[in-house]
């Protein structure tokens, strides 16, 4: 039995062609050069008797062959930016748009033998990064409204990520927020996606509570890390981490104790992977015994994008919190 999958797309094709045509006519009237459109002669607007048949032909007759086609109208290959220039320009500034061109990705991809599987997330359509249809699908106009967070899941739930898993059972999800509440704020179909590398995005994301407990056995610093992300921190893939650096100094300024904690993924060749990121909402508590000579404690929380230890340079790293507390209570008799 013969089917016409393209039939359902007919209104979409007409709509898209109308968009294109109106843009072209508008550009021609303003004298703006556009791809495939010759600049009109000086003072020459397109006459109405030429526009009308052109409209009929382009809008209603030309799409007809697509009826019996694949269901994916040929005209959809036209750049989305023809009709959505603002959204395209905004998205091009995002890291997703360049996910397969980022130096960190390319370095790791080459080191691992250029596996093809990386592109399943970094460039599903084999471009420079994520493309419009990778999220919006290929069904054509009118594109269905995206379902959140499901549309983000293929890449942000696996492989190597628990961003979405940690979001599903988070206070943010229970408050009715979704991925876009933080990563795509604003209205008007904005595509200005933002993440932790955007300047100011991590500002105020984490807080550190520093209290103390005094007991006969010794003093202890009680550190509670909390963050406002809707998912575990850090989100993203396994190499990212949040580090807590705790330093104790004596009255002379000498370091008497130092500890480093890494929150993220850890790997063992025998025990496999261990997830140790900072959960959303409740926070994480770290107890640090105070050195008997310590007079000051400093706690620093750092967000790092690069895999590896602290000795590896990370030009993008951000200091989330840096707190110093004098241990004045120890000097009081």
């Amino acid at each position, binding site marked *: 039995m013969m089917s016409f999958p393209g039939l359902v797309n007919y209104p979409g094709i007409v709509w898209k062609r109308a968009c294109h045509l109106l843009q072209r006519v508008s550009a021609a009237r303003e004298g703006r050069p556009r791809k495939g459109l010759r600049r009109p002669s000086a003072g020459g607007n397109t006459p109405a008797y030429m526009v009308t048949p052109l409209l009929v032909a382009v809008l209603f007759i030309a799409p007809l062959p697509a009826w019996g086609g694949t269901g994916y109208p040929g005209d959809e290959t036209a750049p989305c930016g023809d009709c959505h220039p603002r959204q395209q320009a905004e998205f091009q500034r995002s890291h997703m748009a360049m996910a397969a061109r980022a130096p960190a990705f390319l370095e790791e991809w080459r080191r691992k033998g250029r596996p093809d599987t990386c592109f399943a997330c970094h460039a599903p359509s084999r471009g420079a990064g994520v493309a419009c249809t990778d999220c919006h699908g290929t069904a054509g106009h009118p594109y269905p409204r995206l379902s959140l967070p499901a549309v983000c899941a293929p890449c942000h739930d696996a492989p*190597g990520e628990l961003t979405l898993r940690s979001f599903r059972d988070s206070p943010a999800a229970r408050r009715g927020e979704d991925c876009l509440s933080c990563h795509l704020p604003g209205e008007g179909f904005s595509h200005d996606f933002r993440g932790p590398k955007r300047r100011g995005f991590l500002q105020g994301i984490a807080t550190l509570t*520093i209290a103390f407990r005094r007991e006969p056995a010794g003093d202890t610093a009680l550190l509670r890390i*909390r963050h406002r992300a809707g998912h575990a921190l850090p989100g993203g893939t396994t190499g990212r981490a949040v580090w807590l650096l705790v330093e104790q100094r004596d009255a002379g300024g000498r370091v008497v104790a130092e500890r480093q904690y890494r929150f993220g993924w850890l790997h063992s060749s025998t025990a496999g*992977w261990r*997830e140790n990121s900072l959960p959303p*909402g409740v926070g*994480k508590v770290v*107890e640090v015994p105070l050195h008997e000579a310590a007079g000051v404690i400093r706690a620093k929380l750092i967000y790092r994008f690069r895999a590896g230890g602290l000795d590896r340079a990370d030009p993008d790293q951000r200091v989330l919190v840096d707190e110093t507390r004098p241990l004045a209570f120890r000097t009081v008799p």
Partner: protein
Amino acid sequence: MQERNLVRFLILIGVLLALLGSGDVSARWPTVSAQQLRAWLDAIDPPLILDVRGRADYRAGTIAGALDGGMDPRGYLADGNGGRLVLLLPEGADERVTDAWFARLANAGHRVWILEGGLAAWIEAGGTTEVPEFSYTRPGSVPFLIPRGLCEGGEPSQVFD
């Protein structure tokens, strides 16, 4: 007639004393129900939870994110930034100790509530507990290593599959 009034008066006094000594903390201190606390913890700026039941109880399981404040209010030094605080008291906590905790925390700038029914009510209301972990794996120690790459090609997902 006078004897009857005296009896009534004594009964009234007895009831009042019984109420005061019944451990009904809501009669003297602000309290929060377990359900209400769950809602508070879902807010953008949740309260700090201070567990003062003692080390053994704390280590056996507490509300996630709670600090172990010890059992002696004099030994706890607050952060100094104030804010809301929910106190997780031991079962049948002594009034004087509760008073001391309130005074200590209020002086540090906290607004304090007591969790009604303690941890048992929390669990009954569907709240989860966690066993605090203090022996965090040191980076680079055996057997756990810091990942060398940013993405490990799906291996971590096997943990959950």
